[in-house]
C-alpha cells in the first residue's frame, strides 16, 4: 500500500539535539537519518510499493510524487530547506488531496508524519485546529478521518517526557483518535541521538513495513512466496465473529477452475536463480491454459492465482483475495462443495473442453430472468391486456400464446385480489367475439367465449375456478369431421 511521508521542515526542527557537543546534530538531521533507514529498508524489501515525500511548514509542498525510485526520495531528503512554523491541518489536507488524486478513495494508504512535537503557534497550530473543530461548516472540515482507509504513524523526534510537558502528546493522541484510532505515535527513548532514532524507526518498520512471507502449497509441491502489497487482516461483520481474519502464511491451493473473471481486491504477489520454482511452473501453465487456481488463505477465506500481464509483455503471478466467507463468488457455489472432476461419471468440462459446470445457477431465478407481472404503472397492465387481445385476433393460430398470456394475467389478478380486472378482460374477449369477421375460423369464437367464461368463473373467487395453480386450457374442438 502506498506511503506518504510528511516531513516537518519548520524552524523548530533545526534545534540542536545535544548541548554537550558530542554529536552536533539538529533534530532535522535525526529525522532524515531515520527516514533514510526507512527508505533503505523499503528499497530492499518493499521495492514494489509507492512512496511520496511531502514537506510542510505553514505551507506544504509535494517534493517527490509517488514513486518506486528510492534514490529520488533519498536525494530530496538531503536537499531539505528550513521554513517557518508548523501547520499540521493544512499539510494533512495536502496529503488527502495528493492521495485521492493518485489512488482514489478506496486504496488504503499509510501516512508517516515526522515532526518534533512542536505543533505550531496561534492560528494554524494544531491546538487552534482542535479548538475550532466544532464550529466548522462542511466546507472547512478537518482532514481527518481521511476519505480513504489510512494508518497514521506519527514519528516524534522528541522523547515522551518532553511531549508531556506541553499539550503536544495530548494533541497528537487526538489526531490519532480523529483517524479512527488507526495508527500509532512513536517517540524516542532516552537522549536524542542517532541510535535512539534508529530504534524508533526500527519499531515503525516492524509494525508497518515487515515483508509478508508465505508458503504456497499444491499437494506436495510448494514454494516460498512474498506477497506485495502485504495482505492486511479483515474484520467481517463485527456482530457475530468480530475476530479479524488474517491470511494464513501457509497458502493451500485447492484446485483449478476455468474461470475468466477477476473480482475483488487485487494484490500483486511477486515471487522472488536457477533452481526450479513451483511458482514459475504454475504461472507458466496458468498462462498457457488460460486458467486460474483457487487458493485457500485461511478458514473460509479464499482467493485466486492467475497470470497477469502488463502491456510490456511482462507477466507475473497475481493473487486476488476474495471477501472472506464460504461463498465469495455466488456463481461458484460454496467453495467447500467444489470437488474433483474425477468423481463425476462424465467429465463436466466435456472431453474437448466444450462445456463447463459453471456458473452455478441460483435455485430461484431473479425477477428479471422470469416473466414477472408488475402492474404498478398503468402501462404495464395495458401492455399485458393488449398482448392478449392481439393474440385473440389471431386465433386459432396463436392459441398457445393466447392462453399463456391469459393465464399469466389471471394468476397475477388472483394474487393481487384484482377480480374486477378478470371481469373486465372477460368482457373484452366477449366483445372481440362479436367483432370477429365472417372469414374468421369458427374455432376463434369458441375459444374466445370459453376463455371469457373461465375468467368470469375465476372472478367469483370460487375455489374450484380461482385456484392459483390452475390454468385455463384451450377448449377441445374438432372441426375435421
Amino acid at each position, binding site marked *: 500500500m*502506498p506511503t506518504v511521508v510528511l516531513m516537518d521542515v519548520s524552524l523548530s526542527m533545526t534545534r540542536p539535539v545535544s548541548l554537550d557537543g558530542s554529536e552536533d546534530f539538529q533534530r532535522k538531521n535525526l529525522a532524515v537519518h531515520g527516514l533514510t533507514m526507512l527508505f533503505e529498508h523499503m528499497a530492499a524489501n518493499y521495492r514494489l510499493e509507492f512512496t511520496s515525500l511531502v514537506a510542510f511548514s505553514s505551507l506544504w509542498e509535494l517534493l517527490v510524487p509517488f514513486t518506486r525510485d528510492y534514490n529520488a526520495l533519498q536525494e530530496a531528503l538531503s536537499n531539505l530547506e528550513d521554513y517557518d512554523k508548523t501547520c499540521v491541518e493544512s499539510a494533512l489536507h495536502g496529503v488527502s488531496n495528493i492521495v485521492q488524486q493518485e*489512488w482514489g478513495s478506496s486504496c488504503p494508504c499509510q501516512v508517516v508524519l515526522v515532526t518534533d512535537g512542536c505543533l505550531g503557534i496561534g492560528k494554524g497550530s494544531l491546538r487552534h485546529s482542535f479548538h475550532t473543530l466544532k464550529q466548522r461548516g462542511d466546507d472547512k472540515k478537518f482532514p481527518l478521518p481521511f476519505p480513504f482507509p489510512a494508518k497514521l504513524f506519527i514519528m516524534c523526534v522528541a522523547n515522551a517526557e518532553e511531549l508531556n510537558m506541553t499539550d503536544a502528546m495530548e494533541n497528537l493522541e487526538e489526531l490519532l483518535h480523529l483517524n479512527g484510532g488507526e495508527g500509532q505515535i512513536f517517540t524516542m527513548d532516552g537522549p536524542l541521538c542517532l541510535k535512539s532514532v534508529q530504534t524508533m524507526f526500527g519499531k515503525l518498520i516492524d509494525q508497518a513495513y515487515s515483508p509478508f512471507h508465505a508458503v504456497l502449497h499444491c499437494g506436495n509441491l510448494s514454494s516460498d512466496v512474498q506477497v506485495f502489497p502485504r495482505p492486511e487482516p479483515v474484520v467481517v461483520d463485527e456482530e457475530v465473529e468480530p475476530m479479524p481474519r488474517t491470511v494464513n502464511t501457509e497458502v493451500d491451493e485447492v484446485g483449478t477452475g476455468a474461470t475468466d473473471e477477476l473480482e475483488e481486491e487485487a494484490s500483486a504477489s511477486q515471487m522472488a536463480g536457477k533452481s526450479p*520454482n513451483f511458482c514459475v511452473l504454475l504461472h507458466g501453465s496458468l498462462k498457457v491454459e488460460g*486458467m486460474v487456481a483457487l487458493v485457500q488463505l485461511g478458514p473460509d477465506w479464499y482467493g485466486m492465482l492467475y497470470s497477469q500481464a502488463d502491456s510490456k509483455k511482462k507477466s507475473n503471478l497475481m493473487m486476488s483475495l476474495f471477501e472472506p466467507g464460504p461463498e465469495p463468488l455466488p456463481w461458484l457455489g460454496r467453495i467447500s*462443495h467444489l470437488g474433483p472432476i474425477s468423481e463425476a461419471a462424465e467429465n463436466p468440462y466435456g472431453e474437448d473442453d466444450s462445456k463447463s459446470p459453471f456458473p452455478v445457477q441460483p435455485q430461484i431465478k431473479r*425477477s*428479471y430472468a422470469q416473466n414477472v407481472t408488475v402492474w404498478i404503472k398503468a402501462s404495464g397492465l395495458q401492455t399485458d391486456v393488449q398482448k392478449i387481445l392481439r393474440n385473440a385476433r389471431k386465433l386459432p393460430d396463436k392459441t398457445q400464446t393466447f392462453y399463456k398470456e391469459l393465464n399469466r394475467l389471471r394468476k397475477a389478478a388472483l394474487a393481487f*385480489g*384484482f377480480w374486477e380486472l378478470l371481469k373486465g378482460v372477460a*368482457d373484452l374477449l366477449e366483445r372481440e367475439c362479436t367483432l370477429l369477421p365472417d372469414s374468421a375460423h369458427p374455432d376463434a369464437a369458441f375459444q374466445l367465449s370459453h376463455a371469457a367464461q373461465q375468467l368470469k368463473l375465476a372472478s367469483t373467487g370460487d375455489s374450484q375456478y380461482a385456484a392459483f395453480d390452475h390454468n385455463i386450457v384451450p377448449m377441445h374442438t374438432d372441426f375435421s369431421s
Partner: protein
Amino acid sequence: MKMFSVSHKTAFVVDHCPYMAESSRQQVECDVLTKSRAQGVIPLAPVSKSLWTCAVECSMEYCRILYDVYPTNKLVNYIVSDSEFHILNSWRQEDQSTHELMAALAAVGPPNPREDPECCSILHGLVAAVESLCKITELQHEKRTALMDTAERVANRGRIICLTNAKSDTHVRMLEDCIQETILEQNKLAAGSDRLMAIQQCELVLVHIYPQGEDTLVSDRPKKEISPLLTSEVHSVRAGRHLATKLNILVQQHFDLASTTITNIPMKEEQHANTSANYDVELLHHRDAHLEFFKSGDLHMAGSTSRDSGLKETVTLKWCTPRTNSIELHYCTGAYRISPTDVNSRPSSCLTNFLLNGRSVLLEQPRKSGSKVISHMLSSHGGEIFLHVLNSTRSTLEDPPSISEGCGGRVTDYRITDFGEFMRENRLMPVSESAHDPSGKLPAERAKAQLERHTRYWPMIISQTTIFNMQAVVPLANLIVKETLTEEDVLTCQKTVYNLVDMERKNDPLPISTVGSRGKGPKRDEQYRIMWNELETLVKTHAGATDRHQRVLDCIVACRSKPPEEEERKKRGRKREDKEDRTEKNGSKDTDDKSWQDSDRLKGMLDKEEQESEVIKDSPDSPEPLNKKPRLSTDEVQPPERAKGPVSLLSLWTNRIAAANSRKHQEFAGRINSVNNKAELYQHLKDENGMEVHENGKASR
C-alpha cells in the same frame, strides 16, 4: 449492514379488513382502441384497483427488489389480518420467493366487503408479527449452534411493515402501545424456549393508505423511540402511484440500496426496426457500488439528480457500446447484484436480456471536466446480473516485475504442458450438498487429497525426469495416482511394465536428458537403470495405498533390469562394496544435474531398493532370462569410475566441483562439433584411470 440487523427479518402485516376492499379511485384504461377499430365500438369502462390490490402489489414489488439483491438471509414473513391473522409463509429460505407469496395471496383473495367490520382488526396481524419475530430463523439457529460459547452474540432484531388504513393518530398510538405490550409479553415467553428469541429491537413502519381525492386522517411522523425496544414511524400515503414510490424508497432505505440510471442505451424501435433511440434504465443495488462517488464527493458530478419526492437520488452512468466480446480483465473492486426498478418495461428487459445472454457493458462516469472515466461494468454470472465496480484511478499494481526475474525464473525446461494437463485433471466442479461421501470429507477436502496423491512424485523440469517424457509410461502414470485400482487397472499397469521390458530388450532409445552432462550422456543400459529407478520411485509413493498398488510395484521390481552392482554382488558376494556403491551413486547423481534434495531422495530410494532386491533375488518368480542381455552390455561398457574400485573422498569432491563448474560455462563449439575430440577424450579416460576425468579434460584445453 450487520448480519442480524433489523433487516434480517421483515414482517409484512397487510390489512385485509372490509374497508380495504374500497376503490383506490385511481382508474386504469386497459382498453386502448386503435383508430381503425374505434368506430361503433363502445370502449370498456376503466378498471380501478382496490386499496387491498394497491397494498399487495406494492408489497410484492418491495419483496421482488429485496429478493433480487439479497437472495438469502434477508427474510420476509407475510401476514394478512382480518377477523383473525393468516400467516402466508415462514422464515425458512425455501419460502422466500414472490411466487410462493403470490400463490398464498391468491388463496386469501380480496377482502370481503360484507364481513362484520367490528370483528376485523389489523391488531391480530400485528400481534402475530411480534410472535413471528421471536421465532428463530435458520441463520440464527446455525450461528447459535456454531458459536456455542458466544451464542449470545446472535441478536434478534426485526422490522414490521404494516400496510393499513388507520382511523386517526390516536388509533396509530393505540397500535404502537399494543405492539410494545406484546413484545414485552413475548420476550418473557421467549426466555424459556429454545426455538424462540427475545426481541432486542423492533422497528415499526406504519404505512397508512387512503384513496385518491380524500384527505388523510393520519399525519406523517418521522421515526421516534417508543421504548428502548421499539421505534415507530408513520407514513401517510395515497393509494396507487404514491404508495409504489413510497415503498420503493423504503426498500432502499431499509436495505442500504442506491440507484443507478444507465443512460444512452441504444435500442431498436419496435415500429421502425432500422432506427434506434436512446433509453434510460434505472437499477437498484447495494449502495457500496457508489462508495467511490460518496467519498470523493463526486456524487453531484456523476450526474446525481433528485426526482419525485426529493428523497430519491440516482447516479447517472453512460452506456458504452461494447466494441468486442473479448474477455478483458479489469481491476474490479466489487460486484453487486442489481434489480431493475421497472422490471418489465421494454428498455429494462432489453438491457437485462442483453446481459443475461452473456454480454457485458462498460459504464462511463460523466465528469464536469469532460474527461471519460469507465467506472463500472454490468455483466451476468449464472443468470444473475452484477454491477461491477472498476478501479478508475492509478493502480498500485502497475508495472509488476516479470516472473522470470525471480527465483527459478531462469530455468527454461519447466514441464509447462504437463502441468497444464495436471491442472485440467484437477479441475473442480460443484458437488451438490446432498451428495454425501462415505469418508465424511467435504468435496474440497477430497480435491486436496487428490492434489496430494497426484504430486507425490512430480518432477518440475523436463531434464529431471525420464518416465514423464515417455509415451509408453503414460497409462501406468495416469492410473497409479488413483485412490483405488480395479483389477483391469492393475493389468494395464503390468502391461505397461512388460512393454518397457520389451523396449529394453530391443534396446530402444530413451528420452534421457543430456542437459548438464557432457557428451552423449549415459549409456543405454544406464539410461534404463535411471528410468526403472524413477518408475519405482513413482510407484513406491503409492504402493502403501492398496494391495493392488503394491502389486504394480511388485511387478516392476520383479521385471526391471537389476542394477549392475547387484549383479556383481551376486557374483562376488562382497558386502564391503555396499558402502562404496552408495557414495559413488551420490557422486554420479550430481553429475546428472540433480538437486541435493533429489539425490537425497534417490539415495534413500536406492537403499530401499537394495534391500528389496535382496528379497526378490531369491524369488522363483524372478524372470531371470530377461536380465541376461543388460548384464552382457554392462560387462562391455562399465562406467569409468566403477573400474577402479574404491574411490577416495578427494576424488569424489573434485568430481563434484568439476561437474558444478562445467555447468557454469558454455561448451566449446569446437568440442561439440568434433566427434574425434570426444572419442579421444574418452579413450584417454579409459587408458588412464577414470578418476582424473576432469583434470584431463582441463589439461587438454
